[in-house]
C-alpha cells in the first residue's frame, strides 16, 4: 500500500470501501457469539465464586487484573500520542488523531469492564461509591478511570462533531459548523489537549501506584513503577494505534501517507528504548547489592521465569527495536505493523511477569506456607504457587475483548475518523 490510497469520502455513513457487507455481518455475529459465551462464563463464575478461576490465596490477582492494567496502558498510550501531537504542534499526526482518541476511549471502557469479573462480590460494586476509602489507591484509580473515560469520550465527539453536523447526524447534538462554532471548537480542542495529556499520564501512574505503593510486594515497591508504566503504555498504546491505523487504511477507512508510518515507527522505536532503559535501571539497582531486597528481580533471571524474562526483553523489546531502527524497514508498513504487534505482546508479557513474580512468592515463606483457600487433596498449604488461568477466565476475557471489538467496529462504521484536511 502506498500514499496513493483511494480518496476517502468522509461523510460515508457506513463501512464503505473494500468491506463486504456479508463479511461485516458475519464478523458482528461472531463477536456477539463470543460475548454471549463470555457472559455465560461470567454467570457461571458469579454462581460458583472465584474458585472456578486459577487464583488462590497466594496468587490472588490474575488474568483480569493483568488485562485491566494492559488496557489502561493501551488507553493512556493512545491519548498521550494524540494530545502530545496537538500540544507540540506535530501536524503530521493529524490523520490518526481521531483514531488514537477513539482507541483510548474504547480501551479505558474495557479496562473498567475487566474489574467487574475480578470482584468476589460484583453485585456490591455500589459500595465503592457509598463507603469509598480516600487512602486507597484503588479508589484513586477508579476515580481517574471514570474522569478519563468521560474526557476521552468527549474528545472523540469533539473531533467528529463538525463532520457529524455536516452530515446532519443527531450525534452532533445540535451543534453546527458556523465560523464562530468552529473557532470555539479549536479553542476547546487546545484546552482539551492540555487536560488530556496530564490526565493520561495520571491514569497510568495511579494504576502503577496500585502496585508500586505496596511495601508488602518487594518486586513492585519501587519509585520506577509509575515511569515504567508510562513507558510501557506508550509502547503498547502507540503500537496498537499503528496496527489499527494500518488495518483501517487497508479497509479503505483511513488515508495517510507512508511517511507517517515511518514517523510513528521511529517514535515507537524511541519508546521501546525508553522502556528498555527503565528496565535496565530497575534490574541493576535491585541486583547490584546482592541483598534480600533484590531476590524477586534475581528470580526473573532463573527458573521458570527465565523464558518469560527472555521473551520480555529479547522478543518484546530487542527485536522490534532492531526492526524499527532500520530506515529501510521503517518505511515498510508491514514491517512497522509487525514490530508494533510484537511490541504490544512484549508489553503484555512484561505485565504478566510483574503480576506472577510479584505474587508467587510470599514474604514469609517458611513451611508449610500459606493456606491455599479451597479444599484440596493432601496439604491445604503451599509455599509457592504458579498461576495458570482456567477456561472460565479465558472465556470471560474473550467476551470482554469481543465487546471492545464490537464497540470499535460500530465506531468505525458510524464515526468519521478521517480528518477532512489530512491530505
Amino acid at each position, binding site marked *: 500500500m502506498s500514499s496513493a490510497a483511494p480518496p476517502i469520502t468522509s461523510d460515508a455513513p457506513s463501512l464503505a470501501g473494500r468491506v463486504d457487507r456479508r463479511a461485516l455481518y458475519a464478523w458482528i455475529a461472531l463477536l456477539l457469539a463470543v460475548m454471549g459465551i463470555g457472559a455465560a462464563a461470567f454467570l457461571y463464575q458469579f454462581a460458583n*465464586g472465584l474458585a472456578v*478461576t486459577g487464583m488462590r490465596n497466594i496468587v490472588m490477582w490474575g488474568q483480569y487484573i493483568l488485562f485491566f492494567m494492559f488496557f489502561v496502558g493501551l488507553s493512556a498510550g493512545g491519548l498521550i500520542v494524540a494530545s502530545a501531537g496537538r500540544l507540540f504542534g506535530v501536524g503530521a499526526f493529524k490523520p490518526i488523531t481521531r483514531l488514537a482518541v477513539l482507541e483510548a476511549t474504547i480501551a479505558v471502557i474495557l479496562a473498567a469492564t475487566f474489574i467487574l469479573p475480578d470482584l468476589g*462480590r460484583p453485585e*456490591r460494586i455500589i*459500595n465503592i461509591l457509598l463507603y469509598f476509602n480516600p487512602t486507597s489507591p*484503588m479508589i484513586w484509580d477508579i476515580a481517574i478511570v471514570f474522569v478519563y473515560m468521560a474526557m476521552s469520550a468527549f474528545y472523540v465527539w469533539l473531533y467528529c462533531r463538525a463532520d457529524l453536523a455536516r452530515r446532519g447526524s443527531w450525534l452532533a447534538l445540535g451543534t453546527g459548523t458556523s465560523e464562530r462554532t468552529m473557532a470555539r471548537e479549536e479553542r476547546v480542542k487546545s484546552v482539551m489537549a492540555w487536560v488530556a495529556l496530564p490526565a493520561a499520564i495520571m491514569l497510568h501512574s495511579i494504576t502503577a501506584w496500585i502496585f508500586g505503593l505496596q511495601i508488602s510486594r518487594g518486586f513492585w515497591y519501587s519509585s520506577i513503577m509509575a515511569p515504567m508504566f508510562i513507558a510501557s503504555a506508550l509502547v503498547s498504546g502507540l503500537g496498537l494505534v499503528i496496527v489499527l491505523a494500518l488495518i483501517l487504511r487497508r479497509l479503505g477507512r483511513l488515508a495517510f501517507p507512508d511517511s507517517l508510518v515511518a514517523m510513528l515507527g521511529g517514535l515507537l522505536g524511541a519508546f521501546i528504548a525508553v522502556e528498555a532503559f527503565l528496565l535496565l535501571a530497575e534490574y541493576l539497582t535491585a541486583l547490584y547489592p546482592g541483598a534480600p531486597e533484590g531476590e524477586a528481580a534475581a528470580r526473573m533471571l532463573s527458573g521458570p521465569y527465565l523464558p518469560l524474562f527472555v521473551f520480555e526483553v529479547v522478543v518484546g523489546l530487542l527485536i522490534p527495536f532492531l526492526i524499527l531502527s532500520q530506515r529501510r524497514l521503517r518505511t515498510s508498513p508491514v514491517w512497522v505493523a509487525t514490530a508494533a504487534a510484537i511490541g504490544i505482546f512484549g508489553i503484555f508479557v512484561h505485565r504478566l511477569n510483574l503480576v506472577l513474580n510479584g505474587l508467587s512468592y510470599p514474604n514469609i515463606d517458611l513451611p*508449610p506456607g500459606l493456606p491455599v*483457600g479451597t*479444599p484440596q487433596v493432601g496439604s491445604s498449604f503451599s509455599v509457592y504457587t504458579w498461576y495458570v488461568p482456567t477456561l472460565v477466565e479465558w472465556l470471560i476475557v474473550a467476551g470482554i475483548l469481543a465487546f471492545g471489538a464490537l464497540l470499535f467496529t460500530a465506531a468505525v462504521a458510524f464515526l468519521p475518523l478521517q480528518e477532512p484536511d489530512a491530505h
Partner: protein
Amino acid sequence: MADGKVAPVDALSPASKAWGEIGPRSAAPHWGMVVDQERCIGCWSCAVICKSENDIPLGMWWNRILTEGDSLDQPEVVRGGALEMQWLPLACQHCENAPCVKVCPVQATYHRSDGLVMQDTDRCIGCRYCMIACPYGVRNMNWGAPDRPTPHETGMVGARPLGTVEKCTMCVQRLAEDQVPACVWSCPAGARVFGDLNDPEGRLATLIREREGYELLEEAGTKPSVRYLPPRRRSPL
C-alpha cells in the same frame, strides 16, 4: 445468640472460664498478644481450635504454625552442624499502621477503638487488595462456597459469605465475654499471652521489655499488636 449458637463462655466449665479471663487492663485498652517462641512446641493446637472456634472452612486457616528452616517436620541444621527446631505461629498481626486498612476501597477493613483490625464481610466486595497489601499473608478469600468436614457447625461465630475476605478477629466474640482468644486459652505450653499493650506495667509490656520482644517484618513499619519473644537459649538436639 441470635443464630442459635452457644455463647462461648457458657460452653466452658467454671474452672476454665476463670482461667481464661482477660484480667487487668488500662482505662482504654489496646489489645495485643505476645507469642513466646521459647515455649512454643509446634503442636498446632491453637491453629486447630481457631478453626473450630471460628468455624473456618476446609482449605482456609486464620492461624498456622510455621517451622523455621526448610522443612515442616525436620529440624533445621544450624551453624556447627547442630540440629534445632523452632516455630513461628502466624495469624493477623492487628497492625496499628495496617496496610490492609489503608488500601481497602470500601472501608470493609477497619480499626476498632481497642486496636483490633476487623473485617466487615457484609461490605467487602472481594477485590483482594487487602491480601496484596498484607506483608504477612494471613488473609483468606472465600473462593468458593464454604466446605466443612461435618454438616454440623462447630463455630461460635456466623459463616462468612462467598466472595469475601476473612481473617483472625482475635476472637472478638470471646473478648466480649471477658475471655482470652481461643488460641491463648488452648495453648498447652502457655506460649501465648493476651493483654493490654497500653498498660505499661501489664504482662505484655513487661514481657516485651524483659524478653526483648520483636515485631515480625519490622522493616515494613506496620506496628503490629502481636509481638514475638525470641528463645533466650538455643537447645541443639
